[in-house]
């Protein structure tokens, strides 16, 4: 999927005058296309008067930005200490198996739901007190 040039221009123009616009632009690009393409990096760099390497370096630094498309829904499963203490590691293995390639299972370190873990987020929907069966239902609904 290659981004159409017009919408990217719109995104870029929408941030003229923004202080430190690169992260807001990347978030918008990622939200619209699902990833940040090489072409987008080039156009952003040109627009902001940065080198491609600078933009590329920023994209690569942050866990949120993807450089390749992936249309599958992403389940962000928290595997930080508080969720570990409530059994997230066992669930992580289950999630990989149940997701079976239809859902991208991502590790996230903390969703701020630390007293009711294991917790996960899918498409900005949060879920707590997960166990094998609720996780299975969740993956079934989204896959």
């Amino acid at each position, binding site marked *: 999927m290659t981004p159409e040039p017009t919408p990217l221009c719109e995104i870029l123009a929408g941030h003229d005058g923004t202080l430190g616009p*690169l992260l807001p632009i990347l978030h918008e690009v990622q939200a619209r296309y699902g990833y940040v393409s090489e072409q987008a990096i080039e156009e952003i760099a040109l627009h902001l008067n940065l080198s491609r390497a600078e933009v590329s370096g920023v994209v690569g630094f*942050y866990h949120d930005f993807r450089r390749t498309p992936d249309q599958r829904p992403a389940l962000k499963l928290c595997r930080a200490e*508080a969720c570990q203490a409530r059994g997230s590691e066992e669930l992580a293995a289950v999630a990989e198996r149940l997701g079976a390639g239809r859902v991208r299972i991502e590790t996230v*370190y*903390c969703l701020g*739901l*630390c007293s009711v873990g294991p917790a996960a987020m899918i498409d900005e929907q*949060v879920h707590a007190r997960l166990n094998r069966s609720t996780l299975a239902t969740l993956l079934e609904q989204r896959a």
Partner: protein
Amino acid sequence: MRICVSDDALAIACGADAVVRAFEDAGHAVERTSSWGMHWLEPLVEVDGIGYGPVQPADVPAILAGEAPHLRLGPVADHPFIAGQTRLTFSRAGRTRSLSLDDYSDTGGWKGLEIARRLTAEQVVDEVKASGLRGRGGAGFPAGVKWNTVRLAEGARKFIVCNADEGDSATFADRMLMEGDPFCLIEGMAIAAIAVGASHGFVYIRSEYPHAIRKMEAAIRLSAALIAPFVIEVRKGAGAYVCGEETSLLNSLEGRRGEVRAKPPLPAIEGLFGSPTVVNNVLTLAAIPFILREGAQAYADFGMGRSRGTMPIQLAGNVRYGGLFETAFGITLGELVDKIGGGTDSGRAVRAVQVGGPLGAYLPPSLFDTPFDYEAFAAIDGLIGHGGITVFDDTVHMARQARFAFEFCAAESCGKCTPCRIGAVRGRETMEQIIAGGSDVEDRLALVRDLCETMKVGSLCALGGFTPYPVLSAIEHFPEDFRAPAQVGAA
């Protein structure tokens, strides 16, 4: 009949929206309020002040018929978990609708800002200094001293940056404050702007908190006229834990890789875009309206030693009564874990608690008489950090937790300092060898200790510098887990 259900992300994650729909289907309107912070009771429903929880949609008819004695909690405000707290920063939690300007001003909102507007910048700073408020992000630096540095710094423009990159596991107080009482944070930032002469503020919120981002953006729109000419905008993080470190956060705001900057120059002198910048945690700024409204002394009257005021403590992990407990400094760790938290949720024995997030020490119950205070925790080689406590039961394997500390550091290191970037990877590998067992465990442990020493003194920020805390505390307090790999944790 007044029915209230929280719209906090945690309540929603526990199923609050479905409960609300069940009430609506039964013909009752529901007010969405902030969360009381009693998380084991979520979704918590309040009917004319009487609490019920945790509620499932199927319980709704019984609640409406007054026939749900097993869920009935009595008046929520009188619940021992709430009555036992000193809520200064979280005084509105559970009681107000987060985006209601009326609810906010009816509960003392904007009074602190009105008072600050009548004072000189120096008087506002002096008030914050006198309160004894220390940075709640973890470092505990006196807020008034930082503000004064920015006030006196030369600069054509100055910034207020709110650090809402709450990445520590076991912490959710920033999230709850932003979702539940966003105007309080806005008021605190507006007061800070008066104190230092700033015109522009940023709230840098981690992307893992979409609900908090939406609430803050809405609250900023609603209150823009009240804080003008000061303007605030929300910036979304992008999943980098290290951006909770203030200089890395500033780089991220500027659109760069979130790499840590060397200090000096301090951000107070040369911060965002090279301008003098106040960088404060959410809880620091949210404590400000109370201090201005009620006076510095009213705040300083709480606490112990050099830790003044209250700390919103977060009980998390395998804990029976998890949630937010705001209290004066000085309460002991044991009171928090055993008495207030009720021990583990699994019902097994408490084996360890980690205080202060992924960079905090693992402590055994034998240290539970330690008072919650910056200095007291430093004395036992720990830190209170952002006030999160993760409880673990006796199935925890501490060598694996030490391994995880290195793994986390390796995943989140910004890469600037060699001890952190490479040391974390080597530490994880060495811990894996220790966990696998063998005859040279003592040598490996010596290596880990040596590595920790290098990371401690050779890293610019707390990520590399404090990763040794969980590792070394686990080795010191739970040595048996580093020598008998097969047995421990098998249960």
